[in-house]
């Protein structure tokens, strides 16, 4: 524990704790939600729009559902969203970046100009356009965000590969007659993998935020599935009189996004130090 604090600093450790907490909440949702059925979407019309109380800690929504339970169930959607967006982006970006960096020349030009096309659009706007074109839904919103996300991984992977490709040990493999796919798998990928996974883990936060923005605009998951962004949107109609409806999920988004961002900064600093020490 003290070692962790030493490496990440207090804010980083706290942020890590919050992230871990939310992951646990997502996994354990049915067991820790006070009203699991309402969390999953069952209406409870006798208790519409109640303010926070002992029965309903964070109040209830316009269908009388416990907001705490809804937020807890929404954690599942949001974290899955974040992880899947990053995973899809890596799946596209990593091979593109590897190929561009390793083969260079016209392969590099073609792939990177293609990537630039995606980078030329403002990310959120492109995501909204994509989501609107694909229609709302869980998978569609993930694809929409991943489309704007992968070029960053392609660039990152390419930059890493460019450094590696010139390493004498990679050249030695080539001179020993090792084939290109084998060199990429054995020498390039393991070395690129680590910085990229760190980056990807940190990007879960921003990705989740973008997904929440999409569902706020009605382009994310469909009701009755609980989703933070969608809850903020639904609560707008009752704001400010029933402020808790929008504020509670909004606050949750704020806390999670902040935690990921602080954790990211802490890891980046630590990572730089480690990289200097080992090479």
């Amino acid at each position, binding site marked *: 524990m003290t070692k962790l604090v030493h490496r990440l600093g207090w804010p980083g450790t706290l942020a890590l704790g919050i992230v871990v907490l939310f992951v646990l909440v997502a996994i354990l949702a049915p067991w820790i939600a006070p009203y699991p059925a309402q969390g999953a979407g069952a209406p409870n019309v006798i208790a519409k729009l109640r303010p926070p109380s002992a029965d309903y800690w964070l109040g209830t929504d316009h269908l009388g559902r416990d907001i705490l339970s809804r937020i807890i169930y929404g954690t599942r959607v949001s974290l899955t969203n974040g992880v899947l967006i990053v995973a899809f982006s890596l799946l596209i970006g990593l091979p593109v970046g590897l190929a561009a960096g390793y083969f260079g020349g016209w392969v590099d030009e073609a792939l990177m100009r293609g990537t630039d096309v995606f980078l030329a659009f403002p990310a959120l706007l492109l995501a909204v356009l994509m989501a609107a074109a694909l229609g709302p839904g869980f998978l569609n919103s993930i694809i929409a965000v991943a489309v704007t996300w992968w070029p960053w991984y392609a660039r990152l992977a390419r930059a890493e590969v460019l450094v590696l490709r010139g*390493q004498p*040990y990679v050249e030695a493999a080539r001179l020993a007659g090792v084939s290109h796919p*084998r060199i990429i798998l054995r020498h390039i990928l393991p070395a690129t993998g680590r910085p990229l996974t760190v980056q990807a883990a940190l990007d879960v936060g921003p990705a989740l935020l973008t997904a929440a923005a999409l569902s706020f605009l009605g382009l994310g998951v469909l009701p009755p599935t609980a989703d933070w962004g969608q809850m903020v949107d639904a609560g707008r109609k009752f704001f400010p009189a029933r402020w808790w409806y929008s504020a509670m999920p909004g606050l949750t988004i704020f806390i999670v996004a902040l935690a990921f961002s602080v954790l990211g900064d802490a890891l980046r600093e630590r990572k730089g130090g480690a990289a200097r020490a080992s090479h």
Partner: protein
Amino acid sequence: MSATPMLDIDNLVIRYRAGLFAPRLKPAVNGASFRLVRGETLGIVGESGSGKTSLLRAVLRLLPVESGAIRLDGEDWLALKGDALRRARQKIGVVSQNPFLSLSPRLTIAEIVAEPMLAQGERQGPAMREKIAGLLADCGLPADFLDRRARELSGGQAQRVAIARALSLEPGLMILDEPTSALDVSVQAQILNLLADLKESRGLSMLFVTHNLKVVAHISDTLLVMRRGDVVEFGRTEEVIRAPAEAYTRELLSFGRR
């Protein structure tokens, strides 16, 4: 001694490409011709920028050649492409300057030495491990190095691993690019002795590039002196050292003596 030389280079010109509209650069290697007799060592000497590294990289097919010919073991080496080139590379073993850069930090010694053999389609297994242990022993390393990593070794030990890797496909030609420059003086001598032994026991031909004439005089049979892309001297080592024809060689020699 067989009639075909191990390496026969004829009027080789290497020129780096400048931009599309930039004036053509002076060639990095300007019409080099020499041959390496089987079982001998050819030392290539020159100050930095003399073109010796370019020449070496061209022989390794890492650099395109503008004109001229390279024949390896009687074969047109520049005509090979793609998979044929990849397979033919096993005729050449390469040892480069810094062993810590030329050995992957992620792999064990066994994996590093196995890599060329695996690339040429040999099967992984106890037999290969035995062979690797044998190679390490030939290079003066105990078998318990197999599962260690390069960063745990000293410079001399790591360079021995690099030499073992270069020997793993039983090449006829060894190309050594300043193999001792990154090492301590005492270790340098050990590595040079090892190379001399290996050359003797395996009948290797060697191309030995260095800027240190003292080192090269110790190990090579013939000597090639380069300056600014030109071959200024080529002959038997004793003759070149006894009676250097060029002022430049004399200069290099006097540096070596100091």
